[in-house]
């Protein structure tokens, strides 16, 4: 009868099973950390998107529903505190619209506190023709954009106001 030498017992504790399960656990743990990091970055992106959306809605509403501050700001656009285009509820004032379109881009950004973003303002006629445009349209560097659409009466014609707020890649 041949007996196996007793030295074969030495390696039993470091079995392949133990090493495989340890490795499997580490890989799973690394996967969990990766998921965490991806979710964190998505949360940050969602936060920026929400901010963009909120600002775009607030600015569009302010433009359409307020005459601006001072109320006759179109007389001296350089001193405008808050631009507004309203003549009466649902109607835009032609002089205010002309003055807003001619306003300096950086001045509008500063007034609405949207220096981190870019904007474009458009007035489109009922037949789809572009009547007024101001600001910068989204380009290839745009990472996210929100457009807010409102219908107004201007010079007794229904027109569409389109305010687009967008962010550039950093």
């Amino acid at each position, binding site marked *: 009868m041949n007996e196996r030498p*007793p030295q074969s017992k030495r390696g039993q*504790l*470091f079995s392949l099973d133990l090493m495989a399960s340890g490795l499997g656990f580490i890989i799973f*743990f690394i996967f969990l950390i990766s998921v965490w990091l991806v979710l964190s970055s998505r949360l940050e992106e969602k936060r920026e998107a929400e*901010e963009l959306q909120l600002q775009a809605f*607030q600015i569009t509403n302010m433009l359409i529903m*307020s005459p601006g501050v001072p109320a006759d700001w179109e007389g001296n656009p350089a001193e405008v*505190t808050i631009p507004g285009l309203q003549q009466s509820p649902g109607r835009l004032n032609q002089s205010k619209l002309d003055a807003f379109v001619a306003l300096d881009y950086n001045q509008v950004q500063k007034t609405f*506190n949207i220096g981190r973003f870019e904007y474009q303002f458009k007035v489109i006629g009922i037949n789809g023709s572009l009547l007024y445009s101001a600001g910068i349209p989204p380009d290839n560097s745009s990472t996210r954009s929100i457009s807010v659409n409102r219908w107004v009466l201007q010079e007794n014609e229904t027109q569409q106001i389109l305010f687009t707020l967008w962010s550039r890649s950093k």
Partner: protein
Amino acid sequence: MKQKGQAGIEALFAIGVIVILFIGIYAVYNDKSRNLLAVEQELRQREVCVGLANDIVSVFTLGEGTEKTRRLEYNVTIQPQQQRINLGKSFCTLTIGLVSSEGPVTGTPFNIGEGIVKIKNVNQSVRIQNE
């Protein structure tokens, strides 16, 4: 006798590795858990902040005399000049700077305590005060 001693050392080594692994995992878990709580609180603060900013802009947009009350769960600092609301570690921006706590708009930062606040449009600026 000699072989039994070797197995004991190897077992101790294996247990040591497992303990070190678990300590590492616990440290990471603890860190992420604290991060999660901080993010949760920041999101809650931001929600309050954005809600207040929205109320301020709405009250301004709706014109003279518009009034609204709101319950604030945190103390806030409003910086009219920077068009910004600070709330704990969180902040949000305002699209208007015509905000004051009393009297005319000066642009000086002011604090609003938690509780019920009244937001009112006075002379085309927004006045916000604790009730």
